[in-house]
């Protein structure tokens, strides 16, 4: 393959920023919640301890010389990621603050994280755009936060997580969709979370490879639920981004849902068209972790089935260990126009950058 020598702009749709320490949020918390944070802290669904392969699930070379945690040092992130690869934009998805049992506290933390993101990330580094962290297990509190930040150009999406207490199509989450629709913000569903039960429908597995490699199961759950509950009939302009879920499972799920729906459609009369139509219309996918099939033609077929040209968006997942490098992520050669779309055009359009 000859290089096209054409500079392809890159937008990274999944970057993780994190706190230097829990105290980093103090300036953004009220006295009450500061106290709560020091005294009790976050409490969640305990019991999903899958020891990982590496601390902070981080790339070994992502520890900043400053001694901060991976993802906590903006200068180092600029140097190692944004400048090194010359990114046009990066979308921040902080993986904290959205979940927990004390929802009032979660709401306060989410608010603080959003303020912290503007103050310490997107303002000093305009190439970064942030996702609105919301206390997603409470639709009303979450909507409140979306209303607070919905018009703010520092934010480009609302952030939810793949493992939730209930499937995301259920009514308790609809307030989130209503608010997001109002500001035309896409909703990102990111890898992770601990729902109210075991991490698989077959119970609690044992190993990190099952936790990490099994995450597509949660994404399938959410797509099934969002489609079948008629969320898109109710909110026809709503857009979802499936972040860090992989994507090879997406086409088979379209066929599976269509097949089942053909027989059972009377149960869900709100649906006006094939489930796959909703999937094609309302979902975008981030690329990382790119599946690596043994043969290149398999990957090409997958891209075709996925309509990757329109729906796939490049992501690194920096600073995590399953990082995908912009120049080597795809186990195939992409046609120049497809490459452009995946590497940046799709994200630029969706996030209105």
């Amino acid at each position, binding site marked *: 393959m000859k290089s096209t020598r054409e500079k392809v702009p890159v937008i990274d749709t999944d970057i993780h920023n994190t706190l230097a320490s829990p105290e980093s949020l103090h300036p953004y918390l009220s006295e009450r919640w500061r106290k709560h944070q020091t005294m009790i802290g976050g409490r969640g669904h305990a019991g999903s301890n899958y020891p990982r392969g590496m601390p902070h699930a981080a790339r070994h070379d992502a520890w900043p010389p400053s001694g901060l945690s991976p993802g906590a040092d903006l200068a180092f992130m600029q140097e190692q990621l944004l400048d090194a690869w010359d990114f046009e934009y990066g979308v921040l998805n902080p993986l904290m603050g959205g979940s927990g049992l004390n929802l009032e506290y979660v709401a306060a933390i989410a608010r603080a994280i959003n303020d912290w993101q503007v103050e310490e990330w997107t303002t000093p580094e305009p190439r970064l755009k942030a996702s609105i962290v919301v206390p997603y297990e409470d639709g009303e509190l979450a909507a409140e936060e979306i209303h607070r930040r919905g018009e703010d150009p520092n934010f480009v999406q609302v952030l939810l997580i793949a493992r939730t207490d209930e499937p995301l199509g259920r009514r308790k989450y609809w307030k989130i969709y209503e608010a997001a629709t109002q500001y035309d913000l896409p909703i990102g569903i990111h890898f992770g979370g601990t729902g109210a039960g075991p991490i698989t429908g077959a119970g609690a597995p044992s190993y990190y490879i099952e936790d990490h490699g099994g995450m597509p199961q949660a994404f399938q759950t959410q797509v099934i639920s969002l489609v079948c509950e008629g969320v898109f009939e109710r909110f026809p302009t709503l857009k979802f981004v499936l972040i860090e879920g992989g994507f090879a499972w997406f086409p088979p799920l379209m066929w599976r849902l269509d097949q089942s729906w053909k027989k059972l459609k009377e149960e869900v009369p709100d649906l006006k068209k094939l489930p796959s139509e909703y999937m094609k219309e309302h979902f975008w996918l981030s690329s990382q972790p790119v599946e690596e099939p043994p043969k290149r033609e*398999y990957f090409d077929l997958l891209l075709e089935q996925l309509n990757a040209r329109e729906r796939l968006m490049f992501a690194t997942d920096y600073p995590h260990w399953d990082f995908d490098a912009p120049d080597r992520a795809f186990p195939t050669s992409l046609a120049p126009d497809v490459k452009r779309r995946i590497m940046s055009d799709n994200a630029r359009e969706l996030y209105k950058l």
Partner: protein
Amino acid sequence: MDTWDTKPSFVRSDLPLIDCDIHNRVPSLGTLYPYLPDFWVEYCSTSGFGGPEMGDYPGGAPTSALPDTKPEDGPPGSDLELLREQTLDFWEADYGILNCAYWVQTVHNEYLAAALATAANDWQVEHWLDQEPRLRASLVVSSQNPLTAAQEIERMGDHPGFVQVLLPVRSLMPYGKRHYDPIFEAAARHNLVVGIHYGGAAGIPPSPSGWFSTYLEEYAGAGQIFQAQVISLVTEGTFDRFPDLRVALIEGGFTWLASVMWRIDKEWRGLRHITPWIKRLPSDYMRDHLRFTLQPMDAPPDPKQFLRMIGQLDSDDMLMFSTDYPHWQFDSPEEALPMGLPESLMKKILAENAREFYQL
């Protein structure tokens, strides 16, 4: 079944056929009374206990039964005559494998569950296996307690009519956990396949994110539970502990399999050190030890693409023909097999793969 008057083109005298998923159904709890000890009969008839939970096929759902499969008395799949006529005779099958999805696992009283399993198996011998030589059956076992399950496998495992131990895909813990080893050990020792089948009710949500609102979601979503079981069996080293073990995945679909192979292979390259007993690519274990029944066949609209998808499994051995009778999976018999299969692959899917796997 008017559309069923014409036989599909692949039912030919020179093409053997094995149907790997036929459901024989225990018509009612009372059916099992002759096979239960007296005290359990008394308990069942005086306690208000109605039998295992059977929510997997809602009575009125079109998927639950093909038209005209309901015998005069009893639910679809409960009458041998009708079943014989509509499955074995219609498809001119050499063999049909019965999967009695009588989920005793949903009964938390483990000894009652074990007694029901024993009764169901004795009923299967008398009413099905002894009556029809083309039928083979699957053992009902109380797998929530692997010790009692293993005892039942021990009791019946050498009966030539049983070729499989049946587990519901929904479990309290994934099946790779060593907790379940007694079941796999006994199955391997008696040269039985372990079949993991759609359904069950383990008391935990059927997804990583809670309970679905609709049956459609639950049915379509079952694929991800199968994925969890496949990943568990491989990563826990079940096939390293039982190198001869064969596992059939039944009524869970298979078009998702390639995505799992690629994903878990990729994961393992970086996380090998956490499960160092996995010595080969996880997808190799899958190809060696797993087989999938054909229905439900979640095909892409373009048949050519479907053939390419099947090609992506990198194996011609993994698919086995099934009708899932009496459940409604396809509208005309011709649709029971992917279109345009090369003859050699068609032979394998129709019978050869199952013959080898179940050693028929």
